[in-house]
């Protein structure tokens, strides 16, 4: 909880600064747009968090977005598939890719970084080839509720944000209250020990990529309809890094075994506020990434320093407790 508290403070402070400097920050239009983005990024960031908790990483998300975006436009506009069929096909497809990554990682014992790095390159290339490197779009057709899901609102809240809240609640229960969630943490902490306790470590790890794939599929469809046109060479570029950054800011350790849904959610929000801040404070938009990089660095560094201090204090407490024990540890 301490990590979440720290980053929440950072989030509130940043919001306050931006709101004071530029009142437009709190304007309905700005808040709504930000919430929409938080929703879309949050959904796949949670999937990324799950993978990171198992000690893995998924670098292929951005390229998967490009590929699924292209394929989705083709399904809907060129092949005239019914929207629900297309949606299910896309989500099944991203889950299959996740399963394939998981298989390579758990069965072929390849490193997650390598597997998904190859995915990043491969899917981007495939997307460009299929689309003949041309931008594809949905023009202004609605395709059932799909456009509404990405761009509409319910009770004043943008639909993607609502979907994100639902996802977050469901995944919170899964991660923090279910047997599966406990297994994810156990496997991330120590795969061998988990296996010796009867946890099917490999299946759990592989499954995290499948879940992450499903969430990436959902987020990817929303993002495709949000942008409305998909340029295969740039669509979704760097999005995996937003996911990783959100998870890490939210307290996930790249060593695995640590993290929380709440943290990831706050991390996602923080990233979007930073994006927004660059616009609203009139900072040169080319500095966008520089600002984000600097803030993440400072945030994580501050957290390291604070936890080192906490650790030191804990050692002192433990030393006091040792007074009660008769034997020293040799």
């Amino acid at each position, binding site marked *: 909880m301490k990590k979440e508290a720290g980053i929440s403070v950072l989030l509130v402070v940043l919001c306050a600064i931006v709101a004071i400097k530029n009142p437009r920050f709190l304007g309905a239009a700005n808040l709504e747009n930000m919430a929409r983005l938080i929703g879309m990024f949050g959904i796949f960031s949670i999937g990324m968090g799950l993978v990171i908790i198992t000690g893995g990483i998924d670098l292929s998300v951005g390229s998967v977005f490009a590929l699924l975006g292209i394929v989705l436009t083709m399904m809907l506009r060129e092949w005239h598939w019914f929207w629900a069929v297309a949606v299910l096909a896309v989500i099944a497809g991203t889950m299959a890719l996740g399963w394939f990554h998981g298989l390579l990682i758990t069965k072929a014992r390849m490193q997650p970084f390598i597997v998904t790095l190859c995915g990043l390159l491969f899917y981007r290339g495939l997307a460009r080839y299929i689309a003949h490197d041309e931008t594809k779009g949905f023009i202004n057709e609605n395709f059932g509720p799909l456009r509404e899901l990405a761009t509409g609102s319910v009770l004043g809240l943008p639909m993607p944000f609502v979907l994100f809240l639902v996802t977050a609640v469901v995944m919170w229960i899964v991660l923090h209250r279910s047997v*599966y969630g406990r297994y994810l943490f156990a496997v991330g*902490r120590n795969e061998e020990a988990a296996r*010796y306790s*009867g946890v099917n470590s490999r299946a759990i790890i592989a499954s995290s990529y499948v879940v992450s794939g499903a969430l990436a599929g959902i987020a990817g469809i929303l993002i495709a309809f949000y942008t409305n046109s998909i340029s295969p060479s740039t669509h979704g570029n760097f999005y995996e890094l937003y996911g990783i950054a959100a998870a890490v800011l939210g307290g996930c350790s790249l060593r695995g075994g640590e993290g929380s849904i709440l943290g990831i959610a706050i991390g996602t929000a923080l990233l979007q506020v930073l994006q927004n801040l660059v616009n609203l404070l009139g900072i040169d938009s080319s500095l966008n990434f520089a600002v984000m990089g600097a803030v993440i660095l400072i945030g994580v560094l501050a957290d390291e320093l604070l936890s080192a201090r906490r650790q030191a204090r804990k050692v002192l407490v433990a030393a006091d407790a*040792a*007074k009660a*024990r008769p034997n020293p540890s*040799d």
Partner: protein
Amino acid sequence: MNAPPLLELKGITKRFPGVLALHDVSLAVGQGEVVALIGENGAGKSTLMKILGGVHAADAGTIEFDGRPVTIRNVAEAIALGIGFIHQELNVLDNLDVAGNIFLGREPTWGGGLRLIRRQEMNRLAEPYLRRLGLEVSPRRSLRELSIAQQQMVEIAKALSQNARLLIMDEPTSCLTLSETDRLLAAIKDLRADGVSIIYITHRLGEVQQCADRVVALRDGRNVGSLEGDQIRHDAMVRLMVGRDLQNFYVHPKGAKKPGYFQVRRLRTRAHPRCRISFDAAAGEILGFAGLVGAGRSEMAQAVFGVDTPLEGEVLVEGKPVAIRSPREAMAHGIYLVPEDRRNTGLVTEMTVRENVTLPGLRRYATAGLIRRASEVQVAKRQCATLNVKTPSVEARALNLSGGNQQKLVLAKWLALEPRVLIFDEPTRGIDVGAKAEIYRLMRDLAENGVTLLMISSDMEEVLGVSDRVIVMHEGNIAGILERDQCREEAIMQLAVGKTAESASA
């Protein structure tokens, strides 16, 4: 020793918060003398050595080296004085070669500021140290390709290359095979003849008898006496260490056994693909597995528990064959393993006591996949109470527990389920005497309740003191099975080194 001692500790006292770790300990080591330092876990051996290594500063007392009083603030200063450390866990870099390890940080260089390494020169300089220790490997060999024993020799060579006049060896043989141990002891004799002094810390009293000129025993942070020459006998050392004669742990089983409850047939493991193991164990029996390190005992256990799928073979419980391809399947049949390495495989040490206890049977404490926290806490508390696991709370992380309590936690985890066959791999390694006795008692209780216990142990006292029968393994095969009345240290050793059952009993 008429010459002044090389190292003299006088009145060393060290107090940790609330604990007197060392109390007025004096100790002298002469030139070319091998002093064995013995004592139970927690007696203060490591603390004393950490003071010599400058890790801790003594609260009182003086250290004299070579007749001069010295202060040691860190390991580098100790090394500069001529004190070398050979730790239980080796400090070698297995991605470097032998010479690279020996001269790490002191490489001969050329090229001025570029500091390029003179590889030829370094290899040439390394040779004499290797020869002196009888280590027949090229200085260019990667450490990764060497056995643990050879890596240890490289560490000793490194210490010698730093002109060490006193070597401190902390449990140097804990990971060595019998023949490797003999080679190390021979090397120690040679070093002594060259005038190198050695402090040899060990639990293995047989080795002390073989190599020590003098034995110093610590108990509760005090020097409780020393033995010299032919006073160095097993029983005398044990008396010094524990202050009493060793009690026999063995408890005769009361309940009736059910023979053939657990059977292993023609088990072939990856480690020893040419060997097939078959044995029976009764319900209510503690079946000991003795043998040298690498005899295939742990591999057998891991195959039975499904960690490594065996190449071939059958496991039967109550006469029914059971398919085991993973620990999960083994657990489904009530077969559990208390592994050798409790920190890396026995427990997820960064998780809490509660989470560790409930991990194997988590589904029992869950409804529709959601964990019922209350019943989880209840089980964890109950298990900690029954097994006397000392922890501030069930929410403490397992890594904060002492070794003995961690091992009890591993047991707590399994005993929350219903074990039918429980395999222990080195159940009490690195655990103090008190916790040991508790674990032995638990093992006997389990046996009385009809559980089959397989106990792999390299601790002869434990094998003899706990087992109802002993299977001795040698290079992947079962060398012999000894009934309780045949169990003697010599008989086991004979089989362990590869003598056949007939010649062992002859």
